[in-house]
């Protein structure tokens, strides 16, 4: 595959770049995965929560007297009990100037602010007993008017969710670059109003936590289904006033996370608090209904956007207004404004546009909290951008590929700063575009589309570009005061038999982090991958670091492992040199053997380890073999490593039923150095399907009074095997020069623009009817309404 970058990347590539299966995933095939809910410890209690059924209500009284008498009940805690030991959290960051959000405590105090807000926690011998007792808790509520629609929430007569704030506006920002009025003067203008539904992560494993506080030592041991254990170590220590060194957070196997399992949830804080108060281990696993009512939701944007284009098809400027409803408060510790912020900053990022205006309003509502989920903001930004670019193409009579050719950033333009201020090192937009054109066999599917149209079959072809933020520096959270690490740490140690143990702070939720780290370590050290074992997800075991978020495992974690591996290799060779009385620079390590310049094996790593650990007396005096190294790496250089790629989607719309069938999906992606193409491709495919779910099925529907109407897997539709197409994935590699490894991220690329491609494809199919749709999910009813088949 062509390489857009002019720097040669010296991949020695026995392991880096190899499509190796994941060694550690085998246990899932034997039923030997170990998820949080699988863990039982002595004296463990189970928790269940009483939740507010109203979207907004005052709590006058809670009576737990009868419930306490239920069999098996250990105790019942309410808001005041936990407020005594838990410092409130506030989901604001200082670099989002002026943002405001109500302080949160584990359980609702005088007011509950969404239907599902936990009010009381029962801990009992079994979950069933805890649930039995919930039935007997009496709560006196006064229902309050609810803010449901984000726009209504901005109305001056609206009910207030956070009275102290004075309004429901959590955050607002404006971006202006260039001369937007001029750009729209004498230009062709295309515009649209978009609605992006709320959807949610639906990890197969629900959230789960087991907190075990030992009052004798003040030790808190937490097993939690999370992607960011170090963040929770910090949160639990600070908010429960514990010694951080005495707090351990372990993420065992995690059954999917997708950004959903890195936020602070009321239930998790209540479980930790309940363990501290009771001095007993307490476990809580959300049932699926609780997941829908309390796992963060995502998107929920209404965007009005205009694009100015010259008659030659040159894009001149974007003008964007985004209103997003984020639930009753801003999520902690990453806030609920990052998604909106990325929407208004990513629109148009792939194009040579200097005139830009955008306004964002982030509004509180009495719905479940909304925050970062896979591809944060990207799907919204690229659906808006790519829909308008297609509209502009139609307006000026260009093919969708041609208008992109004319407006993309090109190889001669890097580094580039976007109109919204993002600094981009290098992209491969035009290379990916031509590659997609080729692999889709564009001319053929267009011809087929036209042929079928005459027979009453309506196919649509859509393409959508993405530019994705990966490998974030502290510019994301750290600069705003957030306790979110952007760096990672790795410890490598040679075992007594010469194998390698790697303890690293990036974490595994199925994406294959442990596999790629093993590949990198084996490559960097020069040893057999079968002898490398990677450990993640335990704050007692690994250095502190950012773990898994924003596509940083390969880019940041991988570079950390690479440099740690090089450090260890140097150390091993030094020890070998001392033993062999040979200058270290004459030696190297290949497949676990120390070889000299003539490639003769002088000793094995196994022999070196044996001598180092069991016959240290034979080593030179005063020079013990230090066969353990640590290395930390944080992004430097560009604040983010931008990736890019393009999606193509071929759909068929049944105009009788409104059902959209996705026939085929293509992705050409560029995540820099590909460490393991098998895993990159599966990350892309999984991401695509989540985006297609958002495009076609997934929506958290609320009633006018703020009730979630489809909080079960029977009513909330996620894509299933029979609805999804085969997805072809191709790679272009433009490594970042900020690291030696050159890897950027790929976990969100699939989701970033698959819904945009599907949106464009459906609109392409509907264009013969003069119809269009700008709302996702594109449900059959909405499709039929768009083509005027139903009122």
């Amino acid at each position, binding site marked *: 595959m062509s390489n857009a970058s002019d720097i040669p990347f010296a991949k020695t590539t026995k392991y880096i770049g190899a499509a190796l299966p994941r060694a550690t995933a085998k246990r899932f095939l034997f039923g030997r995965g170990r998820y949080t809910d699988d863990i039982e410890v002595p004296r463990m209690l189970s928790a269940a929560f009483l*939740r507010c*059924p109203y979207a907004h209500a005052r709590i006058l009284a809670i009576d737990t007297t009868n419930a306490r008498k239920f069999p098996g009940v250990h105790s019942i805690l309410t808001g005041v009990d936990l407020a005594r030991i838990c410092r409130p959290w506030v989901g604001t960051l200082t670099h989002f100037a002026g943002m405001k959000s109500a302080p949160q405590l584990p359980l609702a105090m005088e007011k509950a602010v969404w239907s599902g807000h936990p009010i009381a926690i029962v801990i009992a011998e079994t979950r069933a007993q805890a649930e039995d007792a919930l039935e007997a808790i009496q709560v006196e509520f006064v229902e309050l008017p609810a803010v449901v629609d984000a726009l209504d929430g901005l109305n001056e007569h609206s009910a207030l969710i956070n009275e102290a704030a004075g309004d429901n506006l959590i955050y607002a920002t404006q971006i202006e670059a260039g001369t937007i009025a001029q750009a729209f003067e004498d230009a062709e203008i295309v515009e649209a109003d978009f609605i992006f539904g709320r959807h949610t992560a639906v990890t197969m494993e629900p959230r789960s936590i087991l907190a075990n506080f030992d009052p004798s030592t003040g030790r808190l041991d937490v097993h939690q289904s999370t992607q960011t254990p170090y963040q929770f170590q910090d949160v639990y220590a600070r908010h429960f006033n514990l010694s951080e060194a005495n707090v351990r957070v372990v993420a065992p196997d995690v059954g999917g996370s997708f950004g959903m399992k890195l936020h602070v949830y009321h239930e998790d804080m209540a479980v930790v608090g309940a363990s501290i108060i009771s001095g007993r281990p307490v476990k809580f696993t959300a049932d699926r209904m609780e997941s*829908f009512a309390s796992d963060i939701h995502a998107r929920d944007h209404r965007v009005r956007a205009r694009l100015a284009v010259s008659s030659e098809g040159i894009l001149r400027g974007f003008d964007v207004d985004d209103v997003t409803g984020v639930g009753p408060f801003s999520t902690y510790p990453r806030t609920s404004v990052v998604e909106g912020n990325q929407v208004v900053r990513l629109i148009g990022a792939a194009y040579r546009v200097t005139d830009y205006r955008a306004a964002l309003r982030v509004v509180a509502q009495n719905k479940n909290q909304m925050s970062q989920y896979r591809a944060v903001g990207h799907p919204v930004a690229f659906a808006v951008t790519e829909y308008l670019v297609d509209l502009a193409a139609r307006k000026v009579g260009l093919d969708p590929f041609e208008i992109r050719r004319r407006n993309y950033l090109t190889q001669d333009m890097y580094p580039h700063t976007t109109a919204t201020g993002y600094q981009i090192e290098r992209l491969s937009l035009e290379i990916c575009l031509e590659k997609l054109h080729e692999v889709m066999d564009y001319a053929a599917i267009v011809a087929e589309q036209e042929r079928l149209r005459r027979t009453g079959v309506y196919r649509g072809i859509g393409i959508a570009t993405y530019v994705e933020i990966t490998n974030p520096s502290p510019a994301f959270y750290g600069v705003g005061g957030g306790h979110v690490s952007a760096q990672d740490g790795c410890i490598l140690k040679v075992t007594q038999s010469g194998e390698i143990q790697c303890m690293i702070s990036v974490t595994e939720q199925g994406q294959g982090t442990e596999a790629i780290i093993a590949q990198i370590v084996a490559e960097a050290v020069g040893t057999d991958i079968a002898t490398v074992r990677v450990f993640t997800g335990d704050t007692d075991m690994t250095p502190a670091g950012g773990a898994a978020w924003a596509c940083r495992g390969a880019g940041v974690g991988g570079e950390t492992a690479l440099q740690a591996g090089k450090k260890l290799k140097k150390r091993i060779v030094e020890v070998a040199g001392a033993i062999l009385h040979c200058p270290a620079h004459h030696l190297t390590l290949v497949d676990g053997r120390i070889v000299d310049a003539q490639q003769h094996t002088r000793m094995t790593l196994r022999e070196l380890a044996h001598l180092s650990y069991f016959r240290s007396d034979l080593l030179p005096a005063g020079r013990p073999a230090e066969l353990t190294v640590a290395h930390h790496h944080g992004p430097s250089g560009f604040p983010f490593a931008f990736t890019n790629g393009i999606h193509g989607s071929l759909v068929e719309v049944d105009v009788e039923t409104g059902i959209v069938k996705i026939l085929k999906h293509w992705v050409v992606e560029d995540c820099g150095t590909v460490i393991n193409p098998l895993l990159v491709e599966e990350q892309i495919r999984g991401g695509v399907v989540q985006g297609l779910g958002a495009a076609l099925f997934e929506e958290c529907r609320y*009633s006018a*009074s703020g009730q*979630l109407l489809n909080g079960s897997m029977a009513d909330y539709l996620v894509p299933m095997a029979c609805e999804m197409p085969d997805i072809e994935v191709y790679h272009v590699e433009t490594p970042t020069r900020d690291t030696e490894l050159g890897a950027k991220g790929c976990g969100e690329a699939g989701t970033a623009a698959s819904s945009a491609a599907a949106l464009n494809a459906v609109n392409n199919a509907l264009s013969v009817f003069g119809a269009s749709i700008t709302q996702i999910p594109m449900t059959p009813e909405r499709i039929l309404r768009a083509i005027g088949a139903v009122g």
Partner: protein
Amino acid sequence: MDITGEYRIAASREIVWSALNDPDVLRQCIPGCKELEAKSPEEMDAKVALKVGPVSATFSGNVRLEDIVAPEGYTLIGQGNGGIAGFAKGRALVRLAEAGGHTVLSYEARAEIGGKLASLGSRLIQSTSRKLAGQFFDSFAAHLGGKRATADAPVSAEVDDLELIHHTQNT
């Protein structure tokens, strides 16, 4: 969407009106009613067991009568807390008209649910509400007219209300 229905009852408007205000009659006719205790002529405390879709719960709440115009009608407002199942509330505008010695009872009802009931049962709430309203007025009409067959099929139903028709046809 409101649920509406209409019944012709073989009793005078005064008798129907008095039954509509009789907690004993209401207790017998409200589907799943376990307790109903009058606090005042306009207010009653109630305990009602209901099943919406997969969720069963006992609701504790109250029933209030408003806009009372004897003997022409009133608005009945009920709300109940079903513990972990959530809440249910509803209102029904009930009108009585004289029709040749018989009484035509018409109603317009609307129900709302919240919490777990809503997230699991909202697909079913419309049909469940219709069924419950049907059951109530069937029983009510049956109570006044004797054991059976005193309620006609609804004179009009706004929607294709299979359950209600089914119910009334079986009374």
